[in-house]
Every structure is written in structure tokens, then in C-alpha cells.
């Protein structure tokens, strides 16, 4: 438990720092690479939460596929790779109070709801078999709907980006 706690705090600190860099850096490619750090940290937190299948899926889908999409998007939309000055809009200062108010509101709600409640000590890792039993059992209909969403997204993305 102590080792898990130390791991949690190290990963959480790295994640928060990387997330701040994602929203403050002046280089689009650097932002994408900092986002990789956040996503990998999230995968590590999923393992701490006994969700190994979701963690592996996170690495495959996000770090493998979504980041390649982001880098291609950066590459195709501007030739310039490097520092840019006009990435933020004029409401940049307004974002800080908005985020702080939301954080305080959520923090108060979390402290009053959960206080110092602890996670169960003897958590068993959720196996892939249990997840597949759920997906192909009670969650079959949402799974079909999700398949159609992905199909529509694939077709739609090709139609949008295609040159006529």
C-alpha cells in the first residue's frame, strides 16, 4: 500500500505538470508530446486502479493511434514546426478564474462527499474475461451502437478530408 501511494503521487505530479505544459506551451508538436506523458500516466493510474485491460487499451488506442493522428494533423495543417506566438486567444486570462472556480466547486463537493473514505484494500484485478462477459452480455446493444458510431466516424472523416 505504501509503495502504491508513493507511485500514485509521483505519477500524479508528473501528469499534472505535463498537462499544464500541454495547455501553456507555444509549440504544437511539444504539446502533442507532453500529451503522451499525460496519457501514459493515466494508463499507469488505471493499473493502480486494478484495470489492466483498460490500461492496455489506453496505450494502444491513445498513445498508438490518436497521437499519430494529432501529429499528422499538425503536419498537414501548417508547414511551420516550431514556436508560434498566436496559439492563445484574447480570453486567455478569463480561463484561469473559470478553471479555478470549477476546481474549488468540485473540491468542496468531493471533500464533503467522500472525506477520507478508503479504497478496498484487497482489490482483485478485473480480468479481461469478466469485461468481455459484460460487453457481450448486458452491454451488447451499446456495443452495437458504438460500432455504428465508429463506422460513421470513419466514413465521415474520409468524406470530409477527401479532395474532390
Amino acid at each position: 500500500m505504501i509503495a502504491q501511494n508513493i507511485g500514485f503521487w509521483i505519477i500524479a505530479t508528473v501528469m499534472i505538470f505535463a498537462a499544464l505544459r500541454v495547455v501553456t506551451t507555444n509549440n504544437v508538436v511539444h504539446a502533442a508530446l507532453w500529451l503522451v506523458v499525460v496519457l501514459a500516466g493515466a494508463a499507469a493510474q488505471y493499473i493502480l486502479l486494478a484495470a489492466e485491460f483498460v490500461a492496455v487499451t489506453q496505450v494502444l488506442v491513445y498513445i498508438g493511434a490518436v497521437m499519430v493522428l494529432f501529429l499528422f494533423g499538425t503536419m498537414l495543417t501548417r508547414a511551420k514546426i516550431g514556436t508560434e506566438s498566436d496559439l492563445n486567444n484574447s480570453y486567455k486570462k478569463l480561463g484561469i478564474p473559470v478553471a479555478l472556480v470549477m476546481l474549488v466547486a468540485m473540491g468542496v463537493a468531493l471533500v464533503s462527499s467522500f472525506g477520507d473514505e478508503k479504497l478496498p484494500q484487497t482489490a482483485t484485478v478485473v480480468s479481461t474475461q469478466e469485461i468481455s462477459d459484460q460487453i457481450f452480455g448486458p452491454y451488447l446493444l451499446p456495443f452495437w451502437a458504438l460500432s455504428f458510431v465508429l463506422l460513421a466516424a470513419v466514413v465521415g472523416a474520409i468524406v470530409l478530408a477527401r479532395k474532390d
Partner: protein
Amino acid sequence: MFVNQFLFLAAVLFCIGVYGVVARKNAVLMLMSIELILNSVNINLLTFSLRNGTTDGHIFALYIIAVAAAEVGVGLGLVLLVYRNKKTISVDDLSEMRG
């Protein structure tokens, strides 16, 4: 480990993502901030799944990952289309529909 330490991590990431969506003008960076928000929600779902001893949160997290992948695909397709037509992806310059 406390329930709240994971929930607070998710809340901080969520607020950083919201700041990114508000402050950024580049469309690709806005999509990245949206990814931050979706990931914080996934951490919440898995925390509650462990707390309640069920696997439902895992299913929701997997579905969110799939929907996020679809969203990024369509979003970047839109960004490419906007760039081809206007030679910019600054969302401040897309004001044709302003009344």
C-alpha cells in the same frame, strides 16, 4: 489509498483541460485539451468501479476511449477541411455564422 486522491487528480486534470479549451485558439490544441477532459473522466469511472466492486465502470471507460477515437478522427478531418478552405485553423477567424 483514499478514494479522494484519484478523484482530485481527475478534477485537476479536468480543470486544466477546461482552461485549455477556453484559452487556446488553435483547433488542434483545443482537441488535445478535450482529450485531457475525457481522460480525467475515465479515471473517475475506474475509481468508482473499484470502490463499488463492479466492472461497469471499465465498460464505460472502454466506450469512452472508442468514442474519443472517433471524435478525434472526425475533428481532425474538420480541421483539415477548414485549413484547406481558409488557410488557417485559428477558431477566432471562423466567424461566418456570427449574426
